[in-house]
């Protein structure tokens, strides 16, 4: 009797059995992914071509998309989102790398302490963090005003979240504190994992600290940098909770982001089709940015 054996030395019958079991293990996650990611995404794309409100569902072709580019509130939200991405991504990446570089080779206790401190806002959750920041920025009894007035920096209390000139920067400051936790932890790990023999060889060869960083450490942590940049970009594009909890997009739409404006249209104005068109456009923009980042950062990365 000839029994078919595959390259792993397992009979085909047993391999089929293994495959079946593997797919069965995957099935719950696949169903979950299909139900809550793929199908809603498809529905979102589909309904973005409809005038879909609480009272109607009519095909309107590209009207939603055309309206987007004529809607000054959307364009304002788009530009605000762009500002948030452009400011926060480099700031988060550079700061995280700087902190990581400073503490990765310290004692385990010190490294863990800093990791804990910087990661605290991430594990605390957005709502409590935002509530605390709201108290800090409060115009009437906020600690920031109290300190600045008493130091003589400002004469009277400022509505930090109510002024066009300051509100978006307050949002960026909070976003920064909640975004740096994970990148710092990743950079510490990445820097600690660099082969020490290479670093020692560079040192023996007389390489300066700066040169060691740029020619050995930086290329070695490039995959981490790529991940940090892509994830921070996506998170920044999807900035919503801070806006919803702090400013409702105001004053005069100066902090409105695409995600927030999408929410307003979907859940305040019940314009589901229009909101879905925004979602599709946002996904395309994020996709384009990610491809761009992969293309520009990936070069020279050796996985």
């Amino acid at each position, binding site marked *: 009797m000839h029994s078919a054996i595959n390259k792993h030395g397992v009979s085909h019958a047993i391999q089929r059995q293994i495959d079946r079991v593997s797919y069965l293990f995957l099935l719950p996650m696949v169903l979950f992914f299909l139900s809550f990611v793929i199908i809603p995404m498809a529905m979102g794309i589909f309904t973005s071509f409809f005038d879909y409100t609480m009272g109607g569902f009519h095909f309107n072709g590209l009207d939603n998309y055309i309206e987007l580019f004529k809607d000054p509130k959307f364009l304002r939200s788009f530009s605000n989102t762009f500002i948030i991405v452009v400011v926060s991504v480099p700031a988060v990446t550079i700061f995280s790398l700087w902190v990581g570089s400073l503490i990765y080779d310290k004692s385990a206790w010190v490294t863990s302490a800093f990791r804990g401190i910087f990661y605290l806002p991430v594990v605390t959750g957005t709502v409590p963090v935002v509530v605390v920041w709201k108290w800090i920025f409060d*115009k009437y009894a906020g600690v920031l005003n109290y300190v600045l007035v008493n130091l003589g920096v400002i004469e009277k209390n400022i509505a930090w979240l109510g002024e066009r000139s300051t509100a978006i920067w307050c949002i960026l400051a909070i976003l920064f504190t909640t975004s740096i936790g994970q990148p710092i932890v990743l950079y510490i790990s990445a820097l600690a994992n660099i082969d020490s023999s290479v670093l020692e060889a560079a040192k023996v060869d007389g390489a300066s600290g700066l040169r060691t960083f740029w020619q050995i450490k930086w290329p070695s942590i490039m995959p981490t940098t790529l991940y940090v940049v892509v994830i921070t970009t996506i998170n920044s594009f999807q900035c919503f909770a801070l806006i919803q909890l702090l400013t409702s997009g105001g004053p005069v739409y100066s902090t409105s982001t695409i995600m927030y404006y999408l929410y307003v249209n979907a859940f305040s*104005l019940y314009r589901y089709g229009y909101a879905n068109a925004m979602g599709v456009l946002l996904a395309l923009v994020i996709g384009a940015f990610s491809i761009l980042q992969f293309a520009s950062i990936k070069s020279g990365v050796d996985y």
Partner: protein
Amino acid sequence: MVFVIAKEVKRNLFLLEIKPVSSKQPMKCMPCPPDGGVWPCISLREELIWGAPKREMLTSWSQSIPIGGPPLGTAPLICVALAPEVGDHESLAFGGFSLFQMVEDLAVFILGLDLALVREALGKAGKIGISVYCGGQGGDQGTRALVSNLYGATIANKTNTRYTMNSPEGARALELLKDLEKKGYIDAGLSIAAADELQLFAQQQIASTICWGTSNALNYATDAFTQVSVPFPSNDSVPSLEYLVNGFCVFDNKDAGRAEAAKKLIQFICDDPEWGKVNVVKTGAFPVRSSFGDLYPGNPEYALLASWTKYYGGYYNTMPGFAAMRTEWWNMLQYVFTGDKTVAKALADYDVNSTPSSNNS
């Protein structure tokens, strides 16, 4: 126009200092009612010899200002300004607001209409008079009631087919608020919504709130200060109050039996002679039918509030475009206070964007 400072020199005895705008009057001592209850404000006001406020408003307010209540050292600061007879531009703003907060042991009654004095008194106490909050949608009915009442503007027309704030009355009210904000008499709450404003009121940072209701009165019940309800200010002294119809709805889920059962339950909750009343009282509301009678016997505050139901204005919450109008409203206030748009432009845009269309529900 008078400015009255009442200092509680000992339990139930107030020293009233009357300061007209032009000259300082001699001090007066006025004992509080022996039962420690509500001061007969009409006689107090007659004693103070001030203008000629509308009798109807005086009567309603007289029921709501407890003077003799708080113990020594905890007397509240109360600022009550009356709607003026004449349409004085600045004096109008505080007409109808109750501002009452602790200022150490000083109870201040500002019964006049001079906003500079009000501002000075509140400023010394580190307080803000009112905040026209517009940092979000929450509690927007309060700011709408404020703006619409000032000069008799309306939110919607009588047939509930169009929003009507874009009117000379509405523009005048917004110009007034903008002007007052510029002068520092009121605060533009660009970073707060009603919940924040109520919190600030409870914390005694803001001396008055424009989003008060019976549920708030219960939630924020405190011994720290006395709550005094007054109608919104209006140039004609006749407020138009917003109200909420707390009702029920039955889903049409294609099952007549279920719908009937739901209707029966609702009928029981609303009509049952015993539980219908309990339902209203538990929600801190007032019945829509007179047959339930006085559900809050012995509660002068609720009796006063119940008497104001005659001031109820139009009900526009079910109008088409209500959701869009709400979103546009507080943003319109932001445009006005930041100066990004003129009042006329802000109102015109509000009008266009909140006009019912197929785009909004």
